[in-house]
């Protein structure tokens, strides 16, 4: 099996052949599914833990603090300790909760997260599903999570939870529109919804540079709407700690709470990954037209590193939003969407179409 950090397609192909040589095609498929499933689960668990740690450290840095320092070197094991604590915690259920839905909700949220992860291209050839309609698929499944949140809020029989869930429903349904429209802007430019094609067509320049101002505007809108869709500050109305104590997950404890918590962070990763893939060239290295020597140096950095560097950059930006801005009110959140983001988005699409029609882009 040839291992190439610049192109994983050869490796995965060889692996497939290796399995086929030794077992029936059905068994091969099952084994491959298992490997993929386990690696996704591992990735979600580990990257989720890392993101929680990163959030706490970044937040501490914003607030001139040090953050967790006690468990492990510089608090590196803090989130693992937290996770163990959450695992061992008693699962409390309100007496009059709707038991089936109450238990179902965390899984729906988690499943939605996994579904969206399936199409993300981590590097060349390192992509589970490469649909023709990849972008469309992501926007479709990422809003499944809201069903989980609504169920959680309704079934826990708590007024705070219900208010939080309703807020979250209104918010995510609205912002879904902006996310899709800002992606449409780029689809016009790319001419395809297949994520691998979108990434490939940014080989010479990322779309954010290629598409001039319309792409930049679309990027900003995508960031705002994406933050809103992950229920993070300043759009964390569904949790709104100072108003609704904890919003939709008020009544959840232990591992069920951890599911919501983890899903929030992985959703943030998905938004950042989508922003990276669509606007920032995915795993493509940074290239500047004619600086050949610079481009060669950039090419030397593996795509996986590029991808995660960009993703973490975007995540840092999203964290920066959260730790700077006050929370919006529920009517203002809808005002922002319907009166500002949506019209700007529509005009932006028009602009982008003009750019593409006149072949003004690079």
């Amino acid at each position, binding site marked *: 099996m040839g291992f190439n950090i610049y192109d994983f397609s050869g490796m995965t192909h060889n692996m497939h052949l290796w399995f086929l040589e030794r077992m029936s095609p059905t068994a091969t498929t099952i084994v491959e599914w298992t490997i993929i499933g386990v690696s996704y689960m591992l990735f979600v668990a580990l990257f989720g833990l890392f993101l929680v740690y990163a959030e706490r450290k970044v*937040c501490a840095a*914003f*607030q*001139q*603090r040090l953050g967790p320092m006690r468990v492990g070197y510089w608090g590196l094991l803090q989130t693992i300790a937290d996770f163990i604590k959450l695992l061992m915690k008693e699962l409390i259920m309100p007496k*009059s909760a709707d038991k089936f839905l109450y238990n179902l909700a965390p899984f729906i949220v988690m499943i939605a997260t996994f579904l969206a992860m399936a199409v993300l291209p981590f590097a060349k050839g390192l992509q589970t599903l490469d649909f023709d309609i990849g972008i469309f698929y992501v926007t479709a499944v990422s809003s499944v999570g809201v069903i989980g949140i609504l169920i959680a809020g309704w079934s826990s*029989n708590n*007024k*705070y939870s*219900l*208010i939080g869930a309703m*807020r979250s429903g209104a918010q995510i349904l609205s912002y879904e529109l902006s996310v899709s429209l800002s992606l449409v802007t780029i689809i016009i430019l790319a001419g395809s919804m297949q994520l691998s094609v979108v990434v490939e067509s940014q080989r010479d320049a990322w779309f954010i540079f290629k598409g001039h101002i319309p792409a930049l505007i679309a990027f900003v809108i995508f960031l705002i709407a994406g933050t809103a869709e992950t229920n993070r*500050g*300043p759009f*964390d*109305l569904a949790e*709104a*700690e*100072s*108003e*609704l*104590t904890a919003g939709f997950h008020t009544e959840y404890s232990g591992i069920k709470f951890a599911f919501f918590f983890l899903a929030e962070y992985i959703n943030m990763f998905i938004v950042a990954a989508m922003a990276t893939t669509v606007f920032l060239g995915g795993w493509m290295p940074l290239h500047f037209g004619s600086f050949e020597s610079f481009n060669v140096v950039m090419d030397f950095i593996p795509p996986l590193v590029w991808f995660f560097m960009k993703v973490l950059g975007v995540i840092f930006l999203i964290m920066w939003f959260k*730790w*700077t*801005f*006050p*929370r*919006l*009110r*529920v*009517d*203002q959140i809808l005002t922002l969407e319907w009166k500002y983001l949506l019209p700007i988005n529509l005009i932006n699409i028009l602009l982008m179409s003009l750019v593409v029609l006149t072949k003004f882009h690079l």
Partner: protein
Amino acid sequence: MSETKEIIITSDKIHTDEYLVNMGPQHPSTHGVLRLLVRLEGEMVHNIQPHVGYIHSGIEKMCEAISYPQVIHLTDRMDYLSAHMNNEAVALCIENALQVEVPERVKYIRTIMDELSRLASHQLWWCVMGMDLGALTTFFYGLRDREHILDIFEETCGARMTLNYSVPGGVMFDIHPNFQKRVKEFIKEFRKKLPEYDQLLTGNVIFQERTNDIGYLSLEDAIAWGVTGPSGRGSGFSCDVRKHQPYSAYPLVQFEEKLATKGDTFTRYRLRMEEMYESLHIIEQLIDNIPEGDYAVKMKGVVKLPEGEFYQRVETARGEFGVYIVSDGKKNPYRVKFRSPGFSNLFALNKMAAGHKIADLVAIMSTLDLVIPDIDR
């Protein structure tokens, strides 16, 4: 869920039943053990009924059993953020009753301490206000700067919050030799930090949207409900005791009573911010001119007030604080009543927040700057 079950659809609008939510006694934005029984329709607040008394500690009853100098240390525990103003109110009341004239130095020290407490209190209010609106970083910036004031307190008074610094006839200790230097350093640094506060929160478009045009309190209502302090002055109620019945060194300094007429949440916020500048200005006038002299007059071992009733008003960070002492000539007070600003301010909340959303209720409540032990006593 039973309260929300019934939905009546009429021809012109969907009407849902009201439901009750208990905000508190353990709720992040009530800052202590205050319970608000909120009547909601969806997100809209229809009625708020405050339930207090969860930490009623009977300070007024305790005061009847202890001597006058001992009363002062209990006032620390009421409004712990303006502890020095509370101490001073009792000390002034006793001095008035005994016709004791305190040295000039004491007046200066007390006034500087008052304003430092006010600054510390407003800093904490600012950071908590940001936190209530969801901007958690403000909380740490405010506390970071407040730490310097608390250090100054600790160096001179020996405690950070429960100062117990004013005693009848003066102050407990003379100021620390470093006091003036440290206060001046603090002012210099804080003058740089205050504009940052404005950039981070005041100017922020989300913050403006969240606070502008909500929680109106008219002048008439402010007076009728006895809403004092910056909350009352935001409605145009000129209620600064420092101006109207000056005490300590306030007659000697130049300062403005900040007044505004709009009476909404942002106005109250802005007034508190301006008051911080004003406090810095007052301290700057006094800090270099503290006269030499005694830090306390010699009082008798057992302080006995003449028979009668005495009332002293001071301006704390939250509004007008009053001490009403009834003396029967013995060494213990016959009756002590503390008029706390938070108590009156809290009950105007229904007037201000009814008809707004839950998020607004939180914002309005944090501009009232409630301290629960101050309400419950």
